[in-house]
């Protein structure tokens, strides 16, 4: 029996898909901002920070990078309430994404910092700047510029990973797809369309990050 594809059945639910896309965008917007901020902080801690801070930061990075995002998400959403921390689906999803991206971006940014020529540190120091001032004004921006492509790739990877947040009922795109297919029983068509949307989101996100990189680091805009 030949299966008859019925994509129209999917587009009846366009508003649902649109909402899902919106929530996905929300997740990655927060996740990327908070994750990169966390990554900068951790990279600073591992390269310039006090000695006692390094083992806990290293532990955080190693644990997150060596466990699945799904488990991290479940632990935050289902596990933390036992320890007294109750979060909504969106809060848990955003936190999990930030925590996940934070660990990966920490390593990427650290590599960027460590590729900074020693002369830059010495010049900053010889101008009586404190290590913190040298980090903030001299080292950080060129380091980010150096690793921007790798960091952008990682952000796209985490955006695609947000599909997993459907498992705690965060109403992003995958959740929307699950909802639609439970209504119209057109699982293949729904997931096909959702996959196409993800592909488009990935392309757009990559372009956005590329443009952002040029805006932040473009020589013509030396601030």
């Amino acid at each position, binding site marked *: *029996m030949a*299966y008859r594809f019925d994509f129209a059945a999917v587009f009846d639910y366009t508003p649902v898909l649109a909402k899902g896309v919106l929530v996905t965008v929300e997740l990655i917007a927060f996740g990327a901002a908070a994750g990169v901020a966390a990554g900068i902080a951790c990279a600073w801690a591992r390269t310039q920070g006090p000695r006692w801070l390094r083992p806990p930061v290293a532990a955080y990075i*190693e*644990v997150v*990078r*060596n*466990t*699945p*995002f*799904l*488990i*991290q998400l*479940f*632990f935050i959403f*289902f*596990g*933390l*309430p*036992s*320890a007294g921390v109750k979060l909504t689906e969106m809060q848990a999803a955003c936190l999990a994404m930030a925590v996940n991206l934070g660990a990966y971006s920490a390593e990427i940014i650290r590599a960027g910092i460590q590729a900074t020529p020693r002369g830059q540190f010495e010049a900053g120091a010889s101008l009586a700047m404190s290590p913190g001032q040298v980090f903030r004004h001299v080292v950080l921006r060129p380091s980010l510029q150096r690793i921007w492509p790798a960091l952008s790739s990682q952000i*796209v990877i985490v955006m*695609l*990973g*947000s*599909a*997993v947040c*459907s*498992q705690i009922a965060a109403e992003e795109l*995958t959740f929307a*797809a699950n909802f639609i297919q439970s209504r119209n029983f057109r*699982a*293949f068509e729904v*997931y*096909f369309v*959702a*996959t196409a949307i*993800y*592909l488009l989101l*990935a*392309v757009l996100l990559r372009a956005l990050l590329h443009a952002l990189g040029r805006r932040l680091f473009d020589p013509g805009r030396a601030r």
Partner: protein
Amino acid sequence: MIEFSTWDILRNLLLAARWTVLLSLAAFIGGALAGIAVLWLRTSRAALPRRAAWAYIELFQGTPLLMQLFLAFFGLSLLGLEVSAWTAAGAALVLWTGAFLAEIWRGCVEAVPRGQWEASASLAMSRLQQMRHVVLPQAMRIAIAPTVGFSVQVVKGTALTSIIGFVELSKAGTMITNATFRPFTVYALAALIYFALCWPLSLASRRLERRTHAADSH
């Protein structure tokens, strides 16, 4: 209500972890074979195989693994095939792994200096001979560290197969949580087991990376 000890939980998780290991191995081996095939197409001189391989890689790298699992699970059953979660999971993971490994290995082939190609060509070797005797041996040496590094992603990827019903470590975690109402303990232990599987691979990859670069700086 039955009382479960922490040891009970851990024991059940470890039993399920065997399936994680099995699926990871199957995905990795299958993915390696797929990767070689895609790599061969990707580096072809003809435009069509090259573009097809490029599209394949873009598709599998640009969409969520979860979606790929859903499509495999629901898509294959459309074709009239009896699809178990294991089959769908295996198929999707093999295709996904293949795309990533192909890209990693392509980078390693391109890292072999142009002069090697030119020297072997000037010795009248065919393209196949160049690859086999000169370029691939060197590319493989460079490829060990990132390939081991990617195996970590494969192990972590198997966690998503729980969502289409494959009973591995994560699914066991969900099931045990529902039975014991101790999500903190269960997921912490599950994380621990994943960590025990992945961390040695991560360390090995870093060590191999250092050795590769140390050798290069001679």
